């Protein structure tokens, strides 16, 4: 279902400042950007990329599209995603950040109904070092290698990639799930995809501590993933944003009650330890944990 290395890419919001900047960069990196969409700008070219007014107008001209990357402003991003789904595109990367969460709820329902993979919002996209760039990842930190990286954070991902690069391990691929409270595809789906990916020998997860969201991920890895996995969570010392947890967490926050145990960083780390998944204390520890896991 996940297309890790899509070779025909569309960019929606290609005339947005971020969209046009990265369209050129993606193309220069080797990504096959077949077209862009920007209402009212149809017929123009950007760095040789043809621009269309509507996704369904682009497809008959550019042919098959594996993935669309959305740079459209937050309040209109969902419209762009629905437009892509209606045109039959089944993998969407939402680079846009700050999309109202109830918009995401609507989109995710639609995505489930149609079997569409959503990455993001606020995703930096996917990078296959020296091959494909889909989104806004900074390529400087990456080098081709064996570690598949899946991250829920932004620039912290580069810190981890940089460690892997310096340690000579390199990365087979890096998938940025997005920083927002509600995102489409999560760790389990991409873990499964990377578990089946031949160039990936080990998988590193970069997540956030607490909130009660990743405990199920630990169980999933123990049950379904064969390749070695190393996890790193930032924020065990930072205050948890309890307005972003599950219903119980949120309600108890609003009642000024103590935090339910299910949401703590400690409980999350314990869940990973119980599933026998090494958890790094700091980014620089990740390469040695990966090397150790690869030796087994």
């Amino acid at each position, binding site marked *: 279902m996940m297309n890790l290395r899509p070779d025909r890419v569309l960019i929606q919001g290609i005339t947005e400042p*971020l969209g046009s900047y990265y369209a050129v960069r993606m193309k220069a990196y080797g990504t096959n950007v077949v077209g862009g969409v920007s209402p009212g700008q149809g017929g123009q070219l950007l760095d040789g990329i043809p621009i269309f007014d509507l996704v369904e107008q682009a497809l008959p001209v550019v042919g098959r599209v594996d993935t669309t990357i959305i740079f459209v402003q*937050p309040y209109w991003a969902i419209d762009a995603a629905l437009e892509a789904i209606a045109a039959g595109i089944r993998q969407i990367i939402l680079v846009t*950040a700050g999309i109202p969460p109830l*918009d995401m*709820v609507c989109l995710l329902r639609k995505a489930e109904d149609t079997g569409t993979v959503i990455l993001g919002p606020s995703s930096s996209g996917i990078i296959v070092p020296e091959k494909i760039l889909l989104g806004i990842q900074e390529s400087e930190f990456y080098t081709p290698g064996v570690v598949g990286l899946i991250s829920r954070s*932004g*620039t912290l991902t580069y810190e981890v990639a940089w460690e892997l690069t310096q340690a000579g391990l390199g990365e087979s691929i890096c998938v940025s799930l997005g920083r927002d409270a509600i995102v489409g595809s999560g760790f389990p789906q991409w873990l499964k995809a990377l578990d089946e990916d031949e160039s990936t020998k080990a998988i590193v997860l970069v997540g956030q501590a607490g909130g009660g969201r990743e405990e199920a991920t630990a169980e999933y890895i123990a049950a379904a993933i064969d390749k070695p996995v190393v996890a790193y969570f930032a924020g065990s010392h*930072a205050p948890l944003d309890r307005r972003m947890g599950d219903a119980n967490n949120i309600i108890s926050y609003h009642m000024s009650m103590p935090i339910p145990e299910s949401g703590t960083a400690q409980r999350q780390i314990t869940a990973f330890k119980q599933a026998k998944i090494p958890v790094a204390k700091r980014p620089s520890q990740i390469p040695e944990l990966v090397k150790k896991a690869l030796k087994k």
Partner: protein
Amino acid sequence: MDLLEYQAKELFRKMGIPVLPSQRIDHPRDIKGLQLRYPVVLKSQVRAGGRGRAGGVRFAENTIDAIAAARTIFNLPILGEYPHVLLAEAKYDADREFYLAVVLDYAAQRPVLLGSPQGGINVEAVMQHMQQVVVDQEFSPFYARRLMLKMGLQGTLIESVSAIVEKMYQLFVQKDLDLVEINPLGVSSTNEVMALDGKIAVNDDALGRHRNLALLASKMADRNTSPSLSSAPFLPSEAAGRRGRVFIPGEDKEELLLAGEKGAGAQLRGLNWVNREGNIGIICNGTSLAIATLDLLYQAESKPASYVVVGEDAPTSCDPISPLLERALEQITQSKGIKVVLVNILSSATLSGEVAEVIATYLQGKVKDKQVLGAASAAALPHFVVRLIGGDISSSRERLADLPIHLVDNLDLAIAQTVSLAKSSGKRS
């Protein structure tokens, strides 16, 4: 952003959720002009929970009692928060009290309806009997009725209480809420229902398309501005003034923020974090990077004081980092007790160049001040540990070469350097 009870009730009233006659009180003397019939209830308008238990809700039988009660409440902080406004409300004799809420469950990624047949101020009891219904598909009133049965309601109450939940859900979707709560919903001996207290939390990312709520938010922010660090501006949306959107039924285009109001909700954007005991300030380009840096400093047993995020993972020239960084440097350097500023920025070579330029200009200015004013009268500067990574940054290094900073490549070394400087005595001369 959390609304106050009286603001929430205003929205309830417009939505057709029954609320009692009430009046806003800005000062104890306003009690004399009270239009309500006694006895009345006076309620502290604070965001913190547990107001009833803390004495922020009082009954009064007459004007003299009411003025005294109002004075007491105005002077009573609830979890450190003093009310600026009280709400005077008619007294209601509830036979029973329920708890009702609609929240966005971020783990389930769906709205959830919550209800407890034990409403009121005993939060443990509320929680103990709490029932949930996940709205996994398009909302329809049967979700609300499903909750009613789980709560054990019977007869006419099923329809009357689920009608309230339906309206709460409509409000939730129309205004992009994170939470709408009624606690308690009073039920009279004749099975009449009344929202006796209400709470609404608005989603910050959506404020830009709810003009009235955003303006309300900015008013509250002005009032609550703290002297500590404020967040780097992060506009709720740059989208204002563009095409209308079509997805929320009944959404009014005029609700979009006007260009001049864009910053309205922005000050509320969470910073970042402040610890008064600390002596290390952190500047990072990304929240996750900042909290990872914070973790490392804590692991090294040092005392971080604050962090500022500049350009949340935002790359490139489209969203210039310079003005944010300039302000962050100024804010952090001037915060009390800061001995070391740790700048940790990972990005492209282009951005590193921009960052180096800002830091260099800032520090050169400070060094010059010192020469002009003399060492004694110029403000003492903290130490600077700067870590810039990303592409070829040799020109950035050159730009920073002759400045009084510690330039470090490796994160662990940057942490060690920062910790050692923070533990050494005194500021840089």
